């Protein structure tokens, strides 16, 4: 593997690590493991833990994918591996 493709792959893995950490935190973290604690807070009529499990996690998932697409399209261009 050439040096630039190693850097490309490692940057990709770094993005994946950060985004998947957020993925885990909003769903398994806020929606399940810490839901009880978060339920002490409210946004509007929603207890916060409940809101994450029924709404917030899903919104975050959608955002995560679009952020990943943006980051990768930029990375592909930078390393000149993008498609026509």
């Amino acid at each position, binding site marked *: *593997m050439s040096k630039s*493709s190693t850097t*490309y*792959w490692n940057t*990709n893995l770094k993005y*994946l690590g950060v*985004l*998947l950490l957020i*993925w885990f935190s909003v*769903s*398994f973290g806020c*929606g*399940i*493991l810490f*839901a*009880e604690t978060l*339920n002490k807070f409210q*946004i*509007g*009529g*929603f*207890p916060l*833990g*409940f*809101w994450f*499990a*029924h*709404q917030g*996690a*899903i*919104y975050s*998932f*959608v955002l*995560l*994918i*679009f952020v*990943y*697409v943006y980051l*990768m*399209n930029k990375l*592909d261009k930078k*390393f000149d*591996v*993008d*498609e*026509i």
Partner: protein
Amino acid sequence: MSAQTWTYLLVGVTFFIYIVIAILSRAGSTKEFYVAGGGINPIANGMATAADWMSAASFLSMAGLIAFMGYSGGQYLMGWTGGYVLLALLLAPYLRKFGKFTVPDFIGERYYSKNARLVALICALFVSFTYVVGQMKGVGVAFARFLNVPFDTGVLIGIGIVFFYAVLGGMKGITYTQVAQFCVLLFAFTVPAIFISLQMTGNPIPQVGFGSKGTDGVYLLEKLNQISVDLGFDAYTSINKGNLVNMFFITAALMFGTAGLPHVIVRFFTVPRVKDARISAGWALLFIAIVYTTAPAVAVFARTNLINTLSETPYSDVPEWFTNWENTGLLTFEDKNNDGKIQYVAEANLNELTVDRDIIVLANPEIANLPPWVIGLVVAGGLAAALSTAAGLLLVISTSISHDLLKNYLRPNISEKGELYAARVAIAVAVVAAGLAGMNPPGFVAQVVALAFGLAASSFFPAIILGIFDKRMNREGAISGMIIGIVFTTSYILYFKPQLGGSGLPEDFWWGISPEGIGTLGMFINFIVAISVSRFTASPPKEVQELTERIRTPRGSETPDATLH
């Protein structure tokens, strides 16, 4: 016009549209038949994926399930959406770069083994077939209740429609029909929710509405918590602490299972480029999220309405929809204390009302007194959801047979024309078989549909992920991982599922994990076995290592790699 007439009209019009689309998008080659020529626009593919993904269960059953589960229902909401993040980040772009037609294609070539392909093929067939039978049953139920035709006739009409556009158009016909079906089901799911949200909270956005104050100035959720507690149920938003480990495992099994389901993965082979595969997963999840964030709102509205309308109501005053559903046997009232009123309470020997969870979405517009055309719309939406998922699954079944089994295993010299012909015959046979099984579903089907996710998570997911991210992963590791993962998961399910003849008791569940969540553990076992075995056996051949490296960068996706043919 009556609800009945509206239903006939709307179902008739939508079916007509599906047939016209099918005629306009006939498939001419195997590439068109398997992956729609690989030229689908990413947004259209997102819609098709969403329709493919949202089944009769998502559309008809999920909101009802949540209405009765409260907070814990979040496991379905997060579980059935979170997998798309994994798909977009870890699978779709790389499999698109690989550029073949099926999941067994990838497994077979990455693990340079016909046996690996065969194992993957059998898993794909098993998962897809059990799943499709459930859809056929959903079609029959919707027809039987709303169009007053016998259940079997309903299934037959469903078979006829799917047969027509799947056999004719293959993936191409299915994709464009699914785009139309997505629009129908999205409209059908959100319109009633918007109406009800306006009615109950004055806010037209259901996602916001169910966290708002009702007409009496009290937060809707607070009120629902209060009436639930008064009747002896748990507060709707309260957390069931004893169940958190199980909820964690079920959510994970659904997520990883989603990312391993062949009929979802194959959708990302249909877009032109790697970057289209990434963004397409984003669109798919966005479209799914509209329905999945509306569903919990529908659940809260329906549960509140149901209790308010029925609790302590004299039986002589019940609304018409109550009697209609009583006739189907899906809603029953038994006046245990002979006071002539409906007591709906948590205490089992005092409770007089039983409501099947599956009727909530269908009955919701009637419970909220919405105009009759909304009811017709919901039925058309339910049918769109069932048919689109059935078609996607049937395609996976036929591709597995004509491409993976026939072309790559039994008769490699078959001509392009012969393979296309075989694909059409295979899908025709699969449609009929699924329909017949849908009429007389073996008892295990309903149980197995929910478990298909666990099986996909414990077999495919690790094999694909390791095939992309671990260059050292070899044939021996992947095959032993898949086999041990799926055998472990199946055994646990068989032992602990009484409906499947298992003798295990819930108190003996390992760490409280129910059969629905065990796929997560199966997946970890698969990963551990695969990695350990691979490190003690020979490295994969050089050309496979090069393949692994090649799929990691997007450029060159337009011309599928020819070196490994």
